Each structure stands twice: as C-alpha cells, then as structure tokens.
C-alpha cells in the first residue's frame, strides 16, 4: 500500500465509524446552533450590529464546536485501545496524522455547511455572490484549526483533566487562524474588494502551511507509547 492508500484506509475507517454512530457530527451541530441562538440575545432584533458581528459569531460557534468534535474524535481512538492498534499497523505515523486531520476537517466542514445556511437565515446575510470564496475561507480556517487540534487532542486526552485541557491549549495557539478567518469572512459579507479579502486569505494559507508542517513533524512524539 502506498501512503495515499494508507491515508484513505484510515480515513475510511473514521467515516464508517461516524456513519454508524453519528455522535460527533450531531453533537457539534447542535452545539454550534446553540451558540448561534445564544448570541442572538446580545442584539436588538434587526439591528445593524447583527450583520457586522455575524462573522465573529459564526467563527466562535465553529471554534467551540470543533473543540468538542476534536476531543471526541480522539477519545474514540482511545476506546478499546484503538490508537495502539493503529500504531501497530505497518503504516507511517505521518499517514495516521494526515488521515486524522482529513477526517477532522471533513466532519467540522460538514457541520459548518449546515450551520452556515441557518446563520444566513437567522441573521439575514447575503452570501449569494461570494459563496465560493466563503466556502474556501471555511475550509482554510477549518484546516488550520483541525491540524493543531489533531495534535492537541492527543495531548489533552492523556492529561488528568482530559477534555478541559484542549480549549486551553487550542484557542490561544490558533488566534491567528481565527483572526484571519473572521477578517476574510467579514470582508466577504460586507462586499469588500476581493483584493482585500485575498490579502487575509493568503495569510490564512500561509498559517495553514506552517502549522501543518510543524504538527506533521511533531505528531509522532505525541502518540508514541
């Protein structure tokens, strides 16, 4: 098996597991919707602020939901010593890492795809002309978040306080990702010039690459027994 096949096999296993239980996506989805509903109380109905704050709310909802999904996805690997089995397989650690990141991106992105239209409805957003770059922003932001989260969820699962540690590690480190994602989303929704959006998207891509390389190199030290 070459490494692409290895990645695909591990990813396939994760997708199958999720299709059977559906617990990660369901929890994330309900949670992100709850966050959106709670934020709605901050604003006067129909006020201008609502539209300008929407990108921030969107990403807060996604970040919190991802945090939940990431810790759940690693906890699943710990049940029945799943991770040990995976590490005993004759596959490279980097294949395991890439497959886990891909799985996490996929699940989080699905949740975002469902939350976004709900947000559009609730907050009366106009995404018609910008839906394609908006989806790009979602994927790029999610990729950065999931990359760092894949390493940190493996760490937090082995600490005494378990899931509690994940947000404490994840949020400060991913500040640049969240910031760049919020900025490009808000520029897109405000109908700003594409060149302004692009300057933030470029930054987001650069961050994604840096985080991916660093986490890729360090992952083996985290899962090592």
């Amino acid at each position, binding site marked *: 098996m070459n490494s692409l096949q290895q990645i695909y096999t591990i990813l396939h296993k994760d997708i199958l597991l999720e299709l059977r239980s559906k617990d990660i996506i369901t929890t994330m989805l309900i949670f992100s919707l709850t966050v959106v509903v709670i934020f709605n109380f901050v604003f006067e109905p129909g006020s201008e602020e609502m539209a300008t704050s929407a990108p921030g709310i969107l990403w807060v909802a996604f970040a919190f939901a991802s945090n939940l999904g990431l810790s759940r996805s690693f906890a699943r690997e710990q049940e029945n010593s799943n991770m040990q089995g995976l590490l005993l397989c004759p596959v490279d650690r980097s294949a395991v890492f890439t497959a886990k990141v891909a799985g996490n991106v996929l699940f989080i992105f699905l949740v975002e795809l469902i939350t976004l239209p709900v947000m559009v409805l609730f907050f009366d957003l106009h995404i018609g002309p910008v839906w394609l770059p908006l989806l790009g922003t979602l994927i790029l932001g999610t990729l950065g978040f999931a990359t*760092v989260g894949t*390493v*940190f969820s493996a*760490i937090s699962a*082995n*600490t*005494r*306080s378990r899931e509690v*540690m994940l947000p*404490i*590690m994840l*949020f*400060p*480190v991913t*500040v*640049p990702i969240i*910031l*760049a994602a919020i*900025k490009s989303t808000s520029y897109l929704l405000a109908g700003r010039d594409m060149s302004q959006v692009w300057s*933030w998207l470029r*930054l987001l891509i650069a*961050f994604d690459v*840096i985080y991916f390389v*660093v*986490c890729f190199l*360090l992952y083996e*030290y*985290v899962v*090592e027994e």
Partner: protein
Amino acid sequence: MNSIRSSHLVLIILTFIVIEIALYLSFLYAPTESTMGDVQRIFYFHVPSAWASFLAFFIVCAASIAFLRTGKAHWDRLAASSAEIGVLFITIVLLTGPLWAKPVWNVYWTWDARLTTSLVLWLIYIAYLMVRNYTTDPERGARFAAVFGIIGFIDVPIVYMSIRWWRTLHPAPVIAGGEGSGLAPEMFRTLMFNLFAFSILFITLLVLSYRISTLEKQLQALKHQS
C-alpha cells in the same frame, strides 16, 4: 554537600549589584520625561522584562527540540525551569504596561498588536505549565510539554504578525530609531544597562531553578531507593 554552591553565590551577588545599579540608573540617573513625567520610568522595567521573557521562551523552544532529539531528561528540566521564569517576566510585563498606560493613554488596556500578543503569549505558556503538570505519566508529560513548547514558540511571531495586520497602537520601537527616536542618551544608556541587568537576573533565576529541579529529581530517586 553545600546548600549553595560557590558559583551560585557569585551569580547571586553579581545579580544583586547589577540590579542595584539598574535601580539607581532608572530612578536617579535617567532624566524625567518631559510629557509623561515620572511614570515613564516604568519603561526601564517593562521593556527588559519583555526581553527576559522572550529569552526564556526561546530557551524553552530550543531545550524542547533538544529533548525530543536526545531524550535526555536534563533538557526537559531546563525547558520547564525556563518556562516558569518566562511566565513570571511576561506577568510583570502585563502588570507594568497598564500602570503606564492609564496616565498616558487614559486606559489600562487596549487591544493593540503588542499588548494582545503579550496576553496570548501569557495564555500559551500558562497552558504549557498546565500540560506538564496535569499529565499523569511524567515521561509523557515531558514529551507533550516539549511539543507544545515548540508549537507555542513558533506561534509567537505568527500571532504578532496577524494582530499587527489587524491594528497597532503601541509606541513604535524607540531603540533602533537612532537620531530623532525621542530617547535621550541617558535614557538610552539606562535602558541598555537594564536589559543587561535583567538578562543577568534571568540567568541567575534560571540556574537556581534548574538546580532546584535537579535536586528534586535526586530526592525522588533516593526516596525510590529506600
């Protein structure tokens, strides 16, 4: 065995002397700033503390890389000691900053690039200490902390750059400005000396803290034997 080694004693005395000189320079030698007044003197402690914290976090990252490559426990102890002292200095930065900002900016806090970065930095290294202490298996905890220490340090310039793009208000660096940078020669000399003094202070704290963790480890080993 002596409780304090003579080399440590020399370091402590040296630190005492340079810090005394630093205090003299900051409060008596350096002239009073014309618009800000005496509150500007906090600058002589604020900037060197920031410098010492960066030094500390750099050592955390370097020692973490060395630990992951060699697996030698002393690198891990060095990283842990350095992180603790780094958190101390960055806390001083976060406390002295608002004290200066209130009379000068009229607010304690503003979400400017450098301020926000310092706060994020503080959060990252608090998390670093928590990872280390909350992991049940110490050998694993050391590895986790090393991984987090490396990612955290690489993150610092990224956080700074991203927030700088967003907004900045903090006074621009006055040191590299040369002529017209607004820093009188006495102020410049004071700042330079304080940077040196705080580096010495940092090194002394690091050496002592490292020594304590080494002794703790020996004590653990002795307890294990008996």
